[in-house]
């Protein structure tokens, strides 16, 4: 293995990491709105919060396809191990996404069954978020690999730890949803979102703390990555930044800021993501398969890199434009 493929493979790990994070950032808040949906009153509050994501949810979900498709293309072995290992979770997530995705259109088309599609939207969102979190936990706790294939049973993913990570993602997405609504709505919807954001912020910090505390005890390797000298000097910055982010979040919420809570909530997610990177890198299946083991040959990765380098900036540009077209508060006074 020469330097060239190491570079390519690392770059691709970065691109996929970026796609997954972009997915979490974007679909996180719209799944979060689905999770919180039952707490909104029927009528204006629900319609407003739905409208705040209707023009963008489809693009948001495309990052999940890029994450999955990119993994397939750049790290086919990882794709072929992780998906069978977390099979029921992935299937449940996909079915949850089906229900919530169709609800965007259906609830407007069928006033008589709107209550039903609202439940579908909400349950689908909870299911998708919970299974995404559990999948993360299942990967972190380790997957049984033999001869480059998944060799465990079909319920290996189920553990107290994966249940914890599942709950953590549900709570975290709900926080993103609430803070997004603080930004994008006004009136009673915004007030309700504001009231929800405080306990959700506390809960997110609790679950983030719990997952972070549990992870190093899963195996010695995670412990060493986080607490060995001198690495601890660097890794200790992560909890420190989390603390700064959290304080800013509560301060912003108290002061009545509209954008700051969402931005700081994203900051918490970003730091959680960096923490995951510290725990996992350079493995893609922890302790079993590194990114280099799983990598597609350099000519495949290079071919895609040329496209990705050109196209991803263009995607970000027109996605940004689409968000800009629908900027401002939704619903009550129209866009400015």
């Amino acid at each position, binding site marked *: 293995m020469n330097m060239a493929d190491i570079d390519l493979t690392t770059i691709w790990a970065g691109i996929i990491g970026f796609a997954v994070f972009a997915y979490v950032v974007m679909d996180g808040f719209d799944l979060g709105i689905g999770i919180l949906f039952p707490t909104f009153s029927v009528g204006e509050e629900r319609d407003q919060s739905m409208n705040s994501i209707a*023009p963008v949810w489809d693009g948001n979900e*495309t990052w999940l396809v*890029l994450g999955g498709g990119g993994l*397939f293309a750049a790290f086919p072995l990882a794709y072929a191990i992780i998906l069978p290992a977390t*099979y029921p979770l992935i299937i449940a997530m996909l079915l949850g996404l089906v229900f919530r995705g169709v609800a965007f259109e259906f609830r*407007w*088309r069928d006033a008589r069954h709107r209550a039903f599609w609202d439940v579908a939207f909400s349950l689908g969102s909870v299911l998708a978020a919970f299974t995404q979190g559990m999948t993360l936990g299942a990967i972190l706790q380790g997957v049984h690999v033999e001869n480059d294939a998944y060799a465990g049973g079909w319920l290996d993913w189920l553990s107290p730890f994966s249940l914890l990570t599942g709950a953590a993602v549900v709570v975290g997405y709900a926080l993103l949803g609430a803070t997004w609504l603080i930004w994008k709505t006004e009136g009673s919807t915004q007030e309700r979102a504001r009231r929800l954001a405080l306990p959700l912020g506390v809960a997110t910090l609790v679950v983030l703390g719990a997952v972070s505390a549990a992870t190093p005890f899963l195996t010695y390797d995670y412990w060493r990555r986080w607490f060995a000298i001198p690495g601890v000097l660097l890794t200790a910055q992560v909890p420190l930044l989390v603390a700064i982010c959290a304080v800013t979040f509560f301060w912003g919420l108290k002061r009545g800021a509209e954008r700051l809570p969402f931005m700081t909530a994203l900051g918490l997610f970003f730091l959680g993501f960096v923490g995951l990177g510290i725990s996992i890198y350079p493995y893609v299946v922890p302790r079993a398969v590194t990114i280099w083991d799983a990598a597609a040959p350099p000519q495949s990765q290079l071919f895609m890199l040329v496209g990705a380098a050109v196209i991803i900036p263009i*995607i970000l540009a027109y996605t940004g434009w689409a968000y800009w077209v629908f900027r401002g508060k*939704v619903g009550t006074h129209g866009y400015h």
Partner: protein
Amino acid sequence: MFENLDAVILARAQFAFTVSFHFIFPAFSIGTASYLMVLEGLWLKTGNGVYANLYRYWLKIFAIAFGMGVVSGVVMSYQFGTNWSVFSTKAGPVIGPLMAYEVLTAFFLEAGFLGVMLFGMNKVGKRLHFFATCMVALGTLISATWIISVNSWMQTPAGYAINEKGQFVPAGSWLPIIFNPSFPYRLVHTVIGAYLTTAMVVGAVGAWHLLRDRANLGARKMFSMAMWMAALLTPIQIFVGDAHGLNTLEHQPAKVLAMEGHYEPSPNGASLILFGLPSNETAEVHYKLEVPQLGSLILKHDPNAPLPGLSDFPRDQWPPVPIVFWSFRIMVGLGFAMLGLGLWSLLARWRGALYDWSWLHRASIALGPSGFVAVLAGWVTTEVGRQPFTVYGLLRTSESHSPLDAAAVATSLIAFIVVYFSAFGAGTYYMLRMMAKPPQAGEPEPPKIPQRAAGITPAAAVATSTERKA
């Protein structure tokens, strides 16, 4: 129900189910996106309000179909890994990048501009909105191009080498992989198929409303446009299909022989079997009705040209002939029915009676779903005809699946069936209900435009429209 089935059969059933259900939506939305582009373009060019009305009418229906296409498509991007992990590991280095390009160049383009297309009519200028419509339409076509390239590579693999891990890897240039031998034929055939599917639906909706009100301008316009498509595209489609068949005969002869039902070689020219009951067990077609020499005339353009038979191939390389034989006939039969409709409409047009011949309208309604059936039958022909391989001639289906318990696959298959039928069944019902309403002058935009002011919230708009109906 599933006791006697192994994980491979179940995984195949699941993939067949999810991909068939999925493809129904793109088959319609590829054509509809282009149709919307034409409508909006004509509106901008002529300023004729009927085009704007039709645009809004079909946009609402398109939104539902597209949404269902997206969510069922997300499922597909994970089905390769969940159920076909060995195939994914082995073929990933070749087909994975093509699918990644599909995501990058098509899915984001469609999704990014869809929001503006659906909700941005009053937020951006007319020209910019038209641009968004064009980008969505372009996205559907780019998407078709990449995924057909992937599928065609599985049918006619080219440009690959096999590495020490047993993976297919690019041998050098990517061009022979992307432009593999069956790709151009399959792409053109699929896209025209999607256009015809849309034309059949649009024609049927127009005809339905013409039967009630011959003066409805929107119904007249859509029926006329759809019948032009039927008249012009079906002959091209039949020609392209024939060329595609010749290409298949060259690269996948066993598939063509299964389509034709030829178990035995025909050294003096093959007949064309119109109907019959093929059986792989006895290797013959029972009760067959055939036209001598016509098979060779079609496939070789020479009535006496010899054709091989399936018996020239090892038994373990035969596809399941009865399925391929019948799905092919369904597709071809419907194609000729569409041709008949197109010719009939030309006659009606020539006689100045396009909006008056109620039997033409009834026939058009009857053929409304024919595009979907034909498209699915065509896919069954080509996919089942590829069996018993996932990568034709190189990787067997029985060696491609994930190491999963049959119970896991069976459970998820049942879950997919329940969810798809309920969710997509409801969506189809909503689309049909919208199609049942005649296009009106001043067709409202989708009722959930986010910038709507307080007081006329979307809920109120929906409530009003329900009342109007009642």
